[in-house]
C-alpha cells in the first residue's frame, strides 16, 4: 500500500513464497512414506500449518494489513483453540477411561 508496486517488486514478493509452498508440499509427501510413528501426523500437520501461514501472511497480505484485520484473524484462531482444547480434553479423557 506504500509505494506503487512494480511488476518486479510484486514477483519478488510472491514467487519465492510459491516456491517455498511447493517445496513444502514435496517434503510432506516424502515424509508421509517414511515410518516415523506419531511423528508422521505431527510433521504432516506442522507443514500444513506452515503452508497455511505462508498463504495467510504474504499472499493474503496480513503482513501489511492494518491492525484490525490482523486482530480479526487472530480472534478466529483463538476461538478455534477454545473449541479444540475443551472438546478434545473430554474426548481424550473418555478414551483414557476406556
Amino acid at each position, binding site marked *: 500500500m506504500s509505494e506503487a*508496486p512494480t511488476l518486479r517488486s510484486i514477483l519478488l514478493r510472491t514467487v519465492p513464497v*510459491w516456491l517455498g509452498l511447493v517445496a513444502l*508440499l514435496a517434503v510432506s509427501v516424502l515424509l*508421509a512414506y517414511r515410518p516415523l510413528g506419531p511423528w508422521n*501426523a505431527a510433521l504432516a500437520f506442522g507443514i*500444513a500449518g506452515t*503452508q497455511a501461514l505462508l498463504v495467510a501472511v504474504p499472499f493474503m497480505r496480513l503482513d501489511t494489513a492494518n491492525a484490525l484485520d490482523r486482530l480479526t484473524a487472530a480472534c478466529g484462531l483463538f476461538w478455534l483453540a477454545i473449541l479444540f482444547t475443551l472438546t478434545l480434553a473430554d474426548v481424550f479423557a473418555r478414551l483414557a477411561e476406556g
Partner: protein
Amino acid sequence: MTATGEPSPALREPSPPLREPAPLLRESAPSLREPWHDLGFAPADALARQRAGASFGMWIFIASEVLFFGALFLFYAALRAEHPEAVAAAARETNIVYGTANTALLLTSGLLAAIAARAAEVPALRRLVLVCLLLTAGLGLAFLIVKGFEYREDIRENLVPGPGFKLADRPTQLFFGFYWFATAVHGIHLAIGIGLVTRLAWKGWRAPDFLATSPQVEVALLYWGFVDMVWIVLYPALYLVGRAG
C-alpha cells in the same frame, strides 16, 4: 471520565469547530457507496476507508469460516483419536496422485491471486491483473475437474459408504463419510470463488478503472486465499495418513 462515569466539563473535548450541516456529499465521489459517503473525509480518504471496510468485513467473515471448517477438523481429530487404525487403513485408499496434483494446482492459483491483488492497485498493470484472474479461475476449474476424475475412481472402487463398501472395518466408512463431506463442502466454496474471480475479470475487462478502484478485488482474492488454506490442511488429513508401513 470520572469514576462515576459522570461527565465533567473539564474532561470534555474542546469542541471542534462546528461544521455546518453541509449538503450530503453523495455526488462528489461516484464510487463511494451509501453509508461511506458522508463521514466528513476528503473523497480519497473516504474511499480508502470504504476499501478498508470491505476487507475488514471479509476478514470477519474469514474468522467465521475458520470456525466453520475448524468444527469439521475437530470432527476429524476426534475420529482419528477414536479409530486410529481404521483411519489409516481408509486413508490409504485415497488417490495420492490426484490429491497432490490438486494441491499443487491450488498453491499455484494462490500465487496468481496474490499477484493479481497486488497488481490491481497499479492501473498500468491492468492486463496482468486480468490474465492472473483468468488463470486463477482456470486453475480452480482444473482442480474441480481433477476432483471429478478422482470421485469417479472412488465410486468405481466402492469407496462410497454404504452396502458393498470396499473395506470391512466399520469405522473406515466414517473416514470416507468425512472425505466426501469435506471435499464437497470445500468444492462448493471453491466454485463460489471461481464465480467471484471470473466476475472480477469480466468487470475489469468491461470497465477499465474498476480493478483499481473497487474493493471487490481485494475481497474476492482474500476469499480465494482462505479456500486455498482449507485445502492445504485437508490435504494431509485425507491423503497423507497411513502411507508409511
